[in-house]
């Protein structure tokens, strides 16, 4: 079973690539769209810093590093999560999930990684480039330990975000009419644009504890700028592993509830 994974995904992604290469103009449109949204984010930040010198104890270029991380993580979400696991709620409603479940592979893995929106991987590069530029403006060259910690923290953040998507999509097994459940993620993910320390009372409770989305950008960015000791990345990895296990358990419970009726 397990051995079949790699050639199978390889075949899917090859087809995927061949398909996307027919629409090369989409690449330009996608990059322009990302550059525009990065520009509005930077202008928004400039507006805030027109009236203050720090936000939650972070200065301008530190938050730009965080915005770079935010964009890199957005790239992963748009390239992998939305076209993959993000389609699940609709498939539960329409019954198309039947076609997935009868395949002799792990359904969660298949649903999650069968399709990629490859052009959006450019967002990861653009985001990391922005973070790198901001670091040079800060005059901080991260050490190797910091870079390793950053990579680990960013990977952990991606896993946590994946787990949140699995949880949200699994809700569709109970409440069928929430095809646009991904909107809930988009709303909450907006909170990850700024460091957790910037939020007052109620919002901090929401973004930090209730739905711990803000950490997914704050921790990698902190590892990069040296605000946190590199060891924190290990804790982040532990949290990510825990989130993954919980999401996997919820997925199994959800699948047991599913009784498709597709045609």
């Amino acid at each position: 079973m397990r051995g079949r994974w790699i050639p199978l995904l390889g075949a899917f992604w090859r087809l995927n690539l061949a398909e996307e290469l027919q629409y090369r103009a989409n690449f330009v449109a996608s990059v322009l769209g990302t550059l525009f949204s990065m520009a509005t984010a930077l202008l928004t930040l400039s507006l805030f810093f027109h009236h203050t010198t720090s936000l939650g104890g972070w200065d301008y270029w530190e938050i730009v590093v965080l915005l770079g991380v935010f964009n890199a993580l957005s790239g992963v979400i748009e390239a992998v999560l939305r076209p993959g696991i993000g389609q699940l709620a609709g498939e539960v409603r329409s019954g198309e999930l039947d076609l997935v479940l009868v395949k002799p592979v792990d359904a969660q893995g298949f649903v999650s990684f069968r399709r990629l929106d490859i052009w959006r991987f450019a967002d990861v590069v653009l985001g990391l480039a922005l973070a790198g530029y901001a670091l040079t403006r800060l005059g901080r060259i991260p050490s190797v330990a910091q870079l390793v910690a950053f990579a680990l923290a960013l990977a952990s953040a991606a896993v946590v975000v994946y787990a949140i998507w699995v949880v949200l999509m699994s809700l569709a097994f109970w409440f069928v009419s929430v095809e646009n459940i991904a909107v809930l993620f988009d709303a909450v993910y907006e909170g990850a644009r700024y460091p957790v320390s910037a939020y007052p009372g109620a919002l901090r409770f929401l973004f930090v504890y209730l739905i711990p989305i803000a950490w997914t950008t704050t921790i990698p960015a902190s590892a990069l700028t040296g605000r946190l000791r590199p060891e924190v990345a290990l804790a982040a990895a532990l949290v990510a592993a825990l989130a993954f296990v919980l999401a996997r358990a919820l997925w199994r419970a959800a699948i047991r509830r599913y009784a498709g009726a597709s045609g």
Partner: protein
Amino acid sequence: MIKRYAALIRNAWLVDLQYRASIVLWLLWGVTEPAIALGIWWAIAGDGSVAGYARADFARYFFAVMLINQLTIAWDSWYLDRWIRDGELNYRLARPLHPAHEAVAENIAYKARTASVILVVWLVVAAAWPAVRLPLDPGRWALTFVAVLLAAAMRFFISFTTGLLAFWTTRATAIMELHAGVSLFLAGRIAPLALLPPAVAGVAGALWFRSMLAFPVDLLTGAVHGADAIVRGLASQVVWLGIWIVAYRIAWSRGIRKYGAVGG
């Protein structure tokens, strides 16, 4: 016509009722942006004020943004883009009523439902939190009602006209996204216009952006005062509404002549 509208609105209301869970999600999405902006300005203002705005002023401003943005926002460009590309426009054209009427009815039903939720939440929050209470001023509320109607009509025509660009380009929704990005600043979604650099605020006032959202919001919170400023604001709304109606008529008549989709 009134009977037709009543039927269309009832129909749209019942369709929305089927998708009420989805509508709650869109509603949450709509209020996050002002909630986050309020959080950040709240932190920046601290115990002092920013350009005359103290914490309570920001709270009132962004609660008004949540309500009025919900009342004036229009998604029609996304629908039109899809209708034109997949041919759904065909059977809408075959009906004895212009497709725009149906779109208006959908807007009214959707906004009545969602904005009343925001209004109730606002009242509940205001009971506990004096910062977001507005002074009792029925005259001002009546003027705000007129300004909101004008803004909603204008944003409907902006959205509908931009959607009609799908007759010529496959990137009509990208143009709408661009407009949304610009309006983040110029319509006052991220900050009161008073906090923007004066030149930028000037552009917002000279174009239609202030009329879209910032003016009705400032009218409700009391930031716009004096008969002169109110009349000028309303006049600007009327002028820009007229301009967008003209743009819509040109786009519709040219586009429909060009249109020849198959399927539906």
